[in-house]
């Protein structure tokens, strides 16, 4: 018989946290393999978890957050070319006429932030939010825009924010994946590239929680197999693997053994997580969800439950904001699906004392044009095209100062004129709240030290930090 492998101890630690991977153990493994040394946070974190409410398709900031009465005054007239510059658009010609805001705005909360009448629920938590009206991106198409916001690069292949974070911080749970992805609405343009681990090992990929079938793929024992046989099977597999470990001495075998145990725990913890019967009727009503039906609201409630259970990074995609036609109707419909639950999430986290350690981010991949989109051949009217120059994102909770509005656009809502926040600034800020320095969270590949925020200088948005 072989003596125990001296590497086992280290690997054991790794395996115990293998779904997100353990902090120190994996760090030392990767440090050796990739020249990356840090693993614990770089500084003391405010947030332990992130819930990113990704408003895919790009909501109209002009109907929700960025009130521009001038657009009504100039409705029907084109913007001067000096404002437009060389911007390319997806569908419209740059000289299209402007379109006034479709909804009324009012000031809310102690902070007096201006919100549209389409966000009555958000208005009740506005003092907890930092609203950034001066976001801008480099991308004007959905897939590249979404992939850029998630991975810092406009084409598939780079690790997503959730992957970087779990790579950098490891997992707080051994019963659930540490990076979870949910989606409602129609399909996501950026696809799996939005939560891919890119060139990081596959364990850092976001795990989809699905609306149909198993919430996690294959988390249910097949109907042909009884629960007791499942348990016995895992015991048999592990006993056989344990025996083989003695022969081959391969530490990966022992990781495998631990992963079967964890898989077994997942089979229980995932259904337990999904069981909203444990929630009070008040909570269900707060979110306004039907526990039996997949919806954005249900995903928000599940996200809170995940945070309680130690999940690190949660993406909820709500796709449907792409208002090329009838922007008023689009905003109304999507606010009906998201406003109450987004506000409820903030309230609920606060109620449970989790908001301070949970960062909530709400926003899309770009904004929408002050100009109207209309097309005879496509049958479109009263819409807005994609607008990379300005859009609004709000953040709340862990590390964020509430009641702040940052940045401003010009009076036509076209360009940012104050406190511009580029996508990498947003990313750096999210990492910062988690205790990570975006410049030090790197991965060596093909001769380069890659980082989420890319090579251009960027900054943490200090103005909105608590």
């Amino acid at each position, binding site marked *: 018989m072989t003596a125990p*492998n001296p590497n086992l101890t280290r690997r054991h630690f790794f395996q115990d946290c293998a*779904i997100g991977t353990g902090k120190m153990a994996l760090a030392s493994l990767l440090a050796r393999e990739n020249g990356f040394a840090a693993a614990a946070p770089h500084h003391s974190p405010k947030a332990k978890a992130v819930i990113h409410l990704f408003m895919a398709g790009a909501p109209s900031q002009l109907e929700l957050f960025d009130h521009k009465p001038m657009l009504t005054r100039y409705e029907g007239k084109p913007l001067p070319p000096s404002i437009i510059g060389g911007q390319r658009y*997806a569908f419209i010609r740059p000289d299209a006429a402007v379109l006034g805001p479709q909804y009324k705005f009012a000031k809310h909360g102690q902070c007096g932030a201006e919100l549209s009448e389409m966000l009555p629920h958000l208005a009740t938590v506005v003092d907890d939010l930092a609203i950034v009206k001066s976001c801008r991106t480099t991308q004007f198409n959905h897939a590249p825009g979404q992939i850029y916001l998630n991975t810092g690069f406009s084409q598939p292949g780079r690790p997503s924010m959730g992957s970087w974070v779990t790579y950098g911080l490891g997992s707080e749970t051994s019963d659930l994946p540490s990076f979870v992805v949910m989606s409602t609405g129609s399909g996501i343009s950026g696809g799996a590239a939005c939560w891919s681990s890119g060139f990081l090992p596959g364990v850092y990929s976001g795990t989809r929680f699905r609306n149909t079938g198993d919430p996690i*793929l294959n988390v249910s024992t097949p109907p042909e197999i009884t629960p007791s046989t499942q348990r016995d*099977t895992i015991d048999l597999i592990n*006993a056989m693997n344990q025996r083989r470990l003695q022969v081959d001495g*391969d*530490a990966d075998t022992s990781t495998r053994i631990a992963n079967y145990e964890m898989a077994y725990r997942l089979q229980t913890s995932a259904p337990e997580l999904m069981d909203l019967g444990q929630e009070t009727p008040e909570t269900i009503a707060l979110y306004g969800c039907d526990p039996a039906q997949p919806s954005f609201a249900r995903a928000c409630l599940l996200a809170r439950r995940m945070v309680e259970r130690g999940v690190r990074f949660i993406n909820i995609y709500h796709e449907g904001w792409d208002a090329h036609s009838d922007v008023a109707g689009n905003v109304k419909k999507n606010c009906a699906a998201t406003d109450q639950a987004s506000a409820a999430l903030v309230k609920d986290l606060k109620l449970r004392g989790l908001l301070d350690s949970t960062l909530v981010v709400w926003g899309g991949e770009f904004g929408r044009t002050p100009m109207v989109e209309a097309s005879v051949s496509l*049958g479109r009217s009263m819409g807005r095209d994609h607008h990379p120059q300005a859009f609004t994102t709000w953040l709340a909770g862990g590390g964020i100062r509430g009641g702040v509005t940052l940045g401003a656009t010009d009076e036509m809502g076209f360009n940012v004129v104050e406190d511009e926040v580029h996508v990498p600034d947003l990313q750096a800020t999210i990492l910062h709240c988690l205790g990570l320095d975006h410049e030090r969270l790197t991965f060596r590949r093909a001769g380069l030290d890659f980082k989420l925020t890319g090579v251009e200088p960027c900054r943490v948005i200090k103005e909105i930090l608590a």
Partner: protein
Amino acid sequence: MLLLALALSTGAPSAQTVDFNRDVRPVLAQYCFACHGMDEHSRKGKLRLDLSETAYGSGKSGATAIVPGAPEKSELIHRLFSADEEELMPPPHTKKVMPEAERAILKTWIASGAQYEPHWAYSPPRQTPLPKPNLHPIDAFVQARLEREGLKPSPEADRYELVRRVYLDLIGLLPTPAQADAFVHDTSPHAYETLVDSLLASPHYGERWARRWLDLARYADTNGFEKDRPRTIWPYRDWVVRALNADLPFDQFSIRQLAGDMLPNPTPDDLIATGFHRNTMLNEEGGIDPNEYRFYSMVDRVAVTGTAWMGLTLNCAQCHTHKYDPILHTDYYSVMALLNNADEPTYAIPTPQIEAQQQAHRERIARLEAELPTKFPGGPDAMEPRYQEWLTSERARASHWEIVRPSEMQTTLPRLELQPDGFILGSGDISKSDVYDLRLQAPIQNVRALRIEVASHPSLPNDGPGLTNYEGPIGGFFLSELQGRQNGEPIAFSHAEATNDAEPDRISDAAKAPAKPKPGKTNNASAALDGEMSSGWQVLGGYAVAHSAVFHFAEPVDLGAGLDLKLLFEKHFACPLGHFRISVNTSDHATATGHPAEVEAALAAGDLSQRDLLLLRFLETAPEMEKAAAPLLTARKTLPRGQPTLVLRERPATNPRSTRRYHRGEYLSPKEEVTPAVPAFLPPLPDGAPANRLTFAHWLFAPENPLTARVTVNRQWQAFFGRGLVRTLEDFGYQSEAPSHPELLDWLAVEFRNQGWSMKKLHRLIVTSATYKQSSRITPALAERDRENVLLARASRFRLDAEIIRDSALQAAGLLSTKMGGPGVYPPQPASVTSEGTYGKVDWKTSEGEDRYRRSLYTFIKRTAPFAMATTFDAPTGEACLARREISNSPLQALTLLNDSMFLEAAQGMAKQVMAESPDDPARMQNIIRRCLTRPAAPDELALLAGFVAKQRTTGLEGEALWTAVSRAVLNLDEAITHP
């Protein structure tokens, strides 16, 4: 202490001194070259440390950076160890901190003379004499090294382990128990070599090795990005399999993929092979700039070429001169220029069968035409009066059209070429807003109407007549506006009509709702006159499309004074015309008759001598012939076509594409034009040869090229040992890890070339070495000494690739289909993988019959929603080139093997077979173990299984359900999914 630290950091240590290439340059590259390297623009303090002559000199500060032999006098050492933050290098603000060991390396190096040496990978490989001439060459190098390290090789693996390993490595499949036994009991001295040769000759060899190559080729069956529509490029995948099975020498294999279209008299296979660089993604999202994404495709092609053949991170020079390697920003675009002169057509693969079918089709059309008069109801007597009637009415409708050939043609982007028949043929790149300016001048007065005929042409996407090649209806066009000017003054049109005005619109976003007609006609010829860019005249693409639009002038025009015609094509996708002809008409009744031009000409001229032509046209269109003519009309719209696949086609000399440098790598910042070339630090392209893709492809295999052979053998080595001799498969530059066995790497590289770049010979060489045949058991001593198995004192254990895991399970169950080639198949997977969350939905109709059980190589690869099991086990999505897969070990993998329906199906299949084959419990258990693990089970393992069986029986599990449970457990064993 220093030497020990070194040993650990490189994993390949034993030299007693610091080696520049192995130890020093990586440190300088990582910490110094970014500011003190070859990039002039980012150089700080006027100091350059990558060359000895400048490093021995001084920078701005005046102090001498390196004084060989005198670290205490060297400013570099002073700066590295300085306590003053102002002086310290690397500067604290860069957040680069040079560890103690690395600083010590530089100090030792300077103390010992600070000798610079050329980078090992940039000098051609040479074979050194074998250190142990009696041994297999691989063993000679490996064992000499082990000896120096005081280690011994492991004993040979047992026969079961060996047969399992060599099957998995060479063909990616398991040996059946019978195949394993045949080898184990073969006592002939050459049993192993015989086995190796038979595996190398197996058609499954190509399937196994194709998968690895396709990782580099970023092969997938969809376009990627939002819509992620399917594409047909599987003939390329099948070509790779065929080429590997035929042992097409690697130089030929590569040259065909990079430039097969440029070979003299290229064969269909040569063209199919160019699919390699057509595996780039295609963004078809509404409103993208197609040339921006074409640029990204080129960026990808340069990077992939660098990775796959050169082991260079060329991509690092896209935005600026390489921070570490001697690759200039301009070098990057010069390499791009070598690759950037191709069009990207879809190629219909010709075969003798297809040609025969086409011939038969043409004959059928001729026959149908000839027979048409005999089909007239009532016979010739009834036909003739109706024909005369038709002639009278159509002659009255017809009018004389004069073809006008433009005297000048200018466009925003496409190239227009006048054909002998007066048609204008477009080619080249297109944009979302293309404008054609055509000058018409002819001594024709009183012109009242202008006709644009459009017709299909085989050179166009989907046969044209338009140039649309993504997102919109492929091969269609959309004429937003038509404008005329004479002497600078606008010429008014009164109205227009087109022969397809009655067709429903198919203008909607083609990918979401492929070519669904929309009610209500808004797009027709007159929409090209309405001043509204979003409406226009549209014709959809396809074979044998022919339409025309007639535009009527408000006032007659004298063409003698010239007419400047402007055609504007603008949509959210690029949509210019590709094949069209312009004619004018002076009569008072010009109209779009719908007759072919030659028919209308004969009618207008009253040329009744062309009776055959006219009669045929009459018969095709006569209401009473509707049924009889239908087969002919349908036949004309269809043609048997070869299987399409995506290829490259070098542009004609008349229309080369220029390549520019892009400032900071940004598409919106094109700068000066660059000339095609290879980086200066590598051997030059041959004198006198044109600097193009083909020359470049040949150059990769020139004897003086230091990279290609090394990079290739290293990648092959990694497949067998889990780790390359150079760990960084994709990077042989200054930042790469030095080779663990440099002499072996070079020996193999030269041998590979000398053996005619034969992959099979290389693989044979590797698997017949004792090094390969060692046991993979990790003793505690070896685990302690060399966990990563750098020194190769044992064979390597690593988890198998996703595809092999799935194929093995199916094979062990007796379900695997060995059918080769063809379109991607859809094995079972949970429905939510493709039904949820992705924008470009795919209809994952689970394949029936044997296609459920094909080798994973043939699984349809959808980039935005890849096959779930494959992703869980680290298979790539085809979105980026991958030289080396990560190997992860996760609970999700356990869930897949335990609960995925396909693995359950495999367990059920196995149970059935095992019950039929084996009479009792022990035999059945042994059978299952043999099928999954190759080796027989040990008694204690059988006891574990027996305990499980007994317990399950107490719960009432019996028969097939029981043996399914046992099979399922064994399929989940670590050993079942591990390279032994």
